[in-house]
């Protein structure tokens, strides 16, 4: 009796393994046909060559920078899905949300039947694989931490949405803004600046020398007091010791008000003399069409006399 039970149990586990294994076998995606296909081909950040059949009429964006780019290219009406964080421009808010950048709701995306999903840096490879298994084309365009990188991404999105002309115009306008800023601050003395990303109970954080924001600060004609560190973590003592000329913080989260009352910060020469300025950090954090505007806003804070 015992031996028979053992054999039956073994048979059961082996067959249950096969039962579930069958369910996971991939359905061949329609597009994996070995002929030359018509459509738009783009190489994404995972080095995948993705071909999307034209026309692209339904787009899901999985990042705020992508959403802003699509609207800036005049293709906002093709957007059928966006993340919770896509809040610019206003019209984006009325589009259905598909969750967060890192944990997008795959079912919600599938329900929208998009022609393409365009994602950025935080999109996990898992999500890419899941969507591909559902035959939904995904293109991941990760942030490149440079203006050139942003232009390349805008270019690719323009091609995918069939708005190459708008793309060229957008990039050209951004380049103009960047060039005018660099020209305006050239040769001027660079004030020392501290860019506040986090402060107080949760630690003091800023943009270190190896970050993109540090690059932008330097392009805007400023001298980042934290350029000597790598990464984001700084110390209050070091901030006071470096005695920056200017402090820049986010205009959100009541940051300015809190900094004015924060221990250590409130005694900074820059804060006491009214040189704590707010900026829309989304323009700088999102590597999208507003990046050049962000650069200009920062430059105007650092060199008000140049504009």
């Amino acid at each position: 009796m015992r031996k028979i039970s053992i054999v039956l149990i073994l048979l059961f586990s082996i067959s249950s393994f096969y039962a579930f294994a069958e369910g996971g076998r991939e359905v061949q995606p329609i597009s994996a046909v070995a002929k030359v296909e018509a459509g738009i081909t783009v190489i994404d950040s995972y080095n995948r060559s993705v071909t999307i059949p034209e026309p692209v009429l339904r787009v899901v964006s999985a990042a705020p920078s992508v959403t802003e780019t699509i609207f800036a290219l005049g293709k906002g009406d093709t957007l059928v899905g966006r993340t919770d964080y896509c809040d610019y421009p206003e019209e984006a808010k009325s589009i259905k949300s598909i969750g967060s950048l890192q944990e997008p709701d795959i079912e919600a995306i599938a329900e929208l039947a998009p022609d393409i999903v365009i994602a950025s840096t935080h999109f996990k490879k898992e999500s890419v694989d899941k969507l591909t298994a559902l035959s939904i084309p995904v293109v991941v365009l990760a942030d490149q931490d440079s203006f050139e990188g942003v232009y390349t991404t805008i270019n690719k999105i323009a091609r995918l949405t069939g708005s190459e002309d708008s793309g060229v115009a957008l990039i050209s306008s951004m380049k103009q803004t960047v060039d005018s800023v660099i020209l305006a601050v050239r040769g001027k003395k660079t004030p020392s600046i501290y860019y506040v990303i986090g402060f107080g109970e949760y630690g003091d954080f800023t943009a270190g020398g190896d970050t993109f924001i540090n690059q932008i600060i330097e392009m805007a004609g400023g001298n980042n007091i934290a350029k000597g560190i790598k990464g984001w973590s700084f110390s209050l003592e070091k901030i006071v010791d470096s005695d920056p000329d200017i402090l820049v913080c986010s205009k959100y989260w009541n940051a300015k008000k809190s900094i004015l009352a924060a221990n250590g910060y409130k005694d900074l020469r820059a804060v006491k003399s009214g040189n704590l300025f707010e900026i829309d950090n989304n323009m700088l954090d999102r590597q999208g069409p507003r990046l050049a505007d962000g650069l200009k806003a920062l430059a105007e804070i650092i060199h008000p006399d140049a504009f």
Partner: protein
Amino acid sequence: MVFLILVLILLSAIVIAGSLGSARISFPDVVKIIASPTPSIDDGIKDTSRIIIWKIRLPRIILTVLVGMGLGVSGAVFQGIFRNPMANPYILGVSSGAAFGVTLGMIMGLQITFLGIGAIPISAFAGAISASVVVYLISGGGRDILPLLLSGIAMGFLLSAMISLLMYFNRSQLENIVYWTMGSFNAANWQKAAITAPVILPGSIFIIIFARDLNLMVLGEDSAKSMGVSVKKSRLIFLLVSTIITASAVAVSGVIGFVGLIVPHAMRIITGPDHRTLIPYSMLGGAILLLIADTIARTIIAPTEIPVGIVTSLLGAPFFLFLLNRMRNPK
């Protein structure tokens, strides 16, 4: 004797800590700044150095010493009451209650201030006290030790789960919450020191005065009762005072582990089990340990700061192995 040596060690540690930091200020300058709080002309000292010493470093050192004292004392009390070497100040839900309070406060975007203390310490304190009260009530009012312990564990699990749930739906706040729970003194200021000192110092002195009762309770409930100790009442008072001390410590610095656990053990090697000496020694030991840990935390890879809770954990684990070794091979 040994006590005086410990006091001297603490004082030297304070002085050394005062001269160390991510801002390089020479030792003579530090002494000058402390000696004359108001600047006099031509003393060659930068205003920024003065601000750093008086507004950042000094309050941080004092707060660290206070919290260290509080954790040392309450650790010794908890180990005595539960007669358990693994007991630490957080077993009745103070740490998970505080973390839950902070998570809730953060997500609701609380902006209250009270006596110069912001929303985070207030929500932490409220959470810590509430959780402890609930644990006390559901365990049947502290009549027996085991239900108390089990309720504390259950509360810990429950609150951890709720914190995880809240964090899952508020991803943007996740890093902030995790950072706070690791424990750090980077946001130390005079207001925090001013509000914890009147809780931790008198509370610790109170416990020292009644340490004899704690000695008797360690002998066992029946023995204690027969010696005239009203066990239930004493236990409640000791737990209450220790919980308030721990809650205020956690409110201003996050959850710093191992101090409340290691320090009483380390001091017991010197003083033996008599709480009349163990408690004062644990006070000093806690202050010294935490001060050293925090100084390491803010200088070792300056200007980056490591949360002090991580440093204490790194120090705590090897020490525990050392203790274990000692237990298995008594000399």
